């Protein structure tokens, strides 16, 4: 049954017998389609993904080095007005991220005015002095953002994490939709779903819009580390669907602070690079002298204003965990207004009031190390033992600045095909936001990840997570057609 108290996005709080009226058509569809038929379609979709090669590698799992991510046939649906409000929040957040990056690598007003403790930025490995003082073409830093959201009620969305480096997953959004149109065409008659297949065009426009010097016909490329990378499918898919070259570092040369791509017909000047390579491996002269990877001189060409790099090097400081808790302040500082999309409430234990609250409510909170990852150094209050709580209390009192605390959230659920029939499973959501010199665009869709295990809140594909299509309706939904 439904996870206790969680909001189901289709069934509401009422359960399958009393779905949210806007989604009556979906409930009807579910009722009309036998479970075996849902299973069959789901398998057909997964078969197609396998043939396309949309796989991901699980590191350290040699038995199944390449897997496909399980696909669930029941879509998740956003109403037009829900989406409109969500989009406003996303645009505001991404504009603030861009303003923050511009400031932090420039005048650093936000530090001067004491909004963020300077050491949190300046001593952070993610702040890259190598690109301080750079002004990227057209002043855009975070061209492609994936903002990870969770939902707890009809209008309660929270940002869990910002991804301003090289967010992946957009190929799932596109392939999931293609599979749904093929396997469940009736749903697209019942619902007016905003198309997502214009994403490659939007991305290409975004790339062209930031070409240095306003070149109307810029040469754009996708830069991949190579076919051994777990997201290589996405790299080649995007290059292919945009109709531009997919290149590896060895295909690019920098001469006279200008980037060129080697082709059979000779060298061609490159204006815009959508790179899917980490900063560390972009240019051995600028970042990692020990690295043999990368394009020597790329950062010099970038600094000289001769090439646009998406996303800008140095963006890691904007989506860093230590910075995350300051996002509401960052949004307020640059936009002048309150954040329309809130963070998950975060208590910074470096602040005395927050520390006191945390210590008083350890049994209800999740306590995390600011610089921890992968679940290490974490206390989940509601399931912790008395000994663990005692241990964390001591650690918090000794070094409060190293910890943050957050409430445990009741993530929303969406009906999902399981062995025992349809059941609610927890989901999160990654919408994609594009920023070019011509403005900010939110793609009407995104990647919904679903925790397939009953009661699980872990949506990661490496730990039993799957994906769903995410419908954005052009209207307010309706009853059965």
């Amino acid at each position, binding site marked *: 049954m439904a996870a206790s108290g969680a909001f189901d996005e289709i069934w509401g709080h009422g359960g399958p017998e009393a779905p949210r009226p806007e989604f009556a058509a979906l409930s009807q569809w579910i009722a009309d389609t036998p479970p075996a038929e849902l299973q069959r379609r789901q398998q057909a979709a997964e078969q197609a993904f396998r043939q396309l090669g949309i796989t991901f590698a699980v590191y350290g799992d040699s038995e199944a080095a390449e897997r496909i991510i399980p696909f669930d046939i029941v879509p998740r649906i956003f109403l037009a007005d829900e989406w409109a409000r969500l989009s406003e929040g996303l645009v505001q957040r991404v504009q603030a991220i861009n303003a923050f990056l511009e400031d932090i690598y420039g005048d*650093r007003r936000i*530090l001067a005015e004491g909004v963020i403790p*300077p*050491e949190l930025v*300046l*001593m952070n*490995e993610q*702040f*890259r*002095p*190598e*690109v*301080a*003082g*750079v002004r990227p073409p057209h002043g855009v830093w975070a061209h492609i953002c994936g903002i990870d959201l969770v939902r707890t009620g009809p209008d309660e969305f929270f940002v869990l994490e910002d991804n301003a480096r090289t967010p992946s997953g957009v190929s799932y959004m596109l392939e999931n939709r293609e599979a749904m149109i093929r396997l469940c065409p009736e749903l697209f008659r019942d619902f007016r779903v905003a198309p997502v297949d214009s994403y490659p065009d939007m991305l290409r426009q975004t790339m062209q819009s930031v070409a240095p010097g306003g070149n109307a016909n810029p040469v754009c490329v996708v830069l991949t580390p190579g076919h051994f990378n777990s997201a290589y499918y996405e790299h080649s898919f995007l290059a292919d669907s945009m109709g531009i070259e997919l290149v590896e570092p060895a295909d690019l*040369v*920098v*001469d*006279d*602070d200008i980037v060129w791509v080697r082709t059979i017909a000779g060298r061609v000047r490159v204006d815009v690079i959508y790179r899917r390579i980490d900063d560390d491996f972009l240019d*051995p*002269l*600028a970042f990692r*002298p020990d690295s043999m990877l990368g394009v*020597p*001189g790329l950062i*010099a060409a970038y*600094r*000289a204003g001769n090439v646009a790099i998406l996303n800008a090097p140095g963006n890691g400081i904007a989506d860093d965990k230590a910075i995350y808790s300051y996002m509401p302040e960052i949004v307020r500082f640059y936009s002048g207004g309150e954040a329309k999309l809130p963070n998950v409430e975060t208590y910074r234990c470096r602040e005395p009031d927050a520390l006191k609250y945390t210590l008083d409510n350890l049994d209800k909170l999740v306590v995390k190390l600011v610089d921890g990852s992968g679940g290490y150094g974490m206390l989940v209050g509601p399931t912790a033992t008395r000994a663990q709580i005692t241990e964390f209390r001591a650690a918090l009192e000794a070094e409060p600045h190293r910890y943050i605390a957050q409430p445990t959230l009741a993530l929303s659920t969406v009906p999902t095909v399981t062995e025992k029939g349809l059941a609610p499973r927890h989901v999160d959501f990654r919408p994609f936001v594009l920023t070019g010199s011509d403005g900010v665009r939110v793609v009407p869709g995104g990647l919904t990840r679903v925790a397939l295990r009953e009661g699980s809140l872990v949506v990661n594909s490496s730990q039993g997570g799957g994906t769903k299509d995410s419908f954005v309706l052009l209207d307010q939904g309706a009853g059965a057609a």
Partner: protein
Amino acid sequence: MRIAVDHRTHYRFSEPQARIVQMLRLTPTDTQDQTVVSWSIGVDCDARLRHGADGFGNAITMLYAEGPIAALDITVIGEVLTMEAAGVIRGSHEPLPPLLFLRTTPATTADAALAAFAAEAAAGEPLDRLHRLNAAFHARFPDVADVRDRGRGAAEAFGCTAPSSREAAQMFLAAARSLGVPARYVSGYRSDGSAHGAPHGWAEAHVAGLGWVGFDPATGLSPDESYVRVAIGLDAAGAAPTAGTRSGSGAEELDVDVIAEPLGREE
């Protein structure tokens, strides 16, 4: 003091290289107490040089050369006018705040021995304790030379004798940062009139109210007017005079000859 610099870098390749891309930090910039009178970077092959700056405010020259290249000579000739300022840096272009220079890097991380040495040597007022630390390094390592080294990090070099000036400077950085003092590496020249196999390296530490102050553990003193500052960084690699990549197989031989000579005192 008027100082003439002659800094030659010779690369020899066992097999011709198809392409060479290098980033050179070989050009000093002006401060209140240092004026570049003349400066030139010459390359003995058909190369394109582009001048710019990096995020630390260093002057950068990008060198792009197409092969086949069997050898590459980079010749720097220049003259600089300096004034005595007791090691205090005035009027330098500082794009990054001092706090950034509290960061450690793999080459400038203090181990327990180095941190204990720093804590013991450095007692007293902020400026005094840095001078004491500097003197303590000089007492421990009296023979520091401008020679090519094996690029040992601070912790490893601390356990050895006779570090290079570059290694000694990195030890000072590690020690200062372990005390909570922002510190940075400086690469440049010391005009003693004799030939060396590498440029000189020393440290600068940030002292509240005074700003950046130079400390040279090779002498145990602060730099005087016989020093020419060229580039700064978080460690020696970050301020390296030349950083390069080449396309081609085979081995590489590198020779460096540096002479900085005092030409006389300006009155």
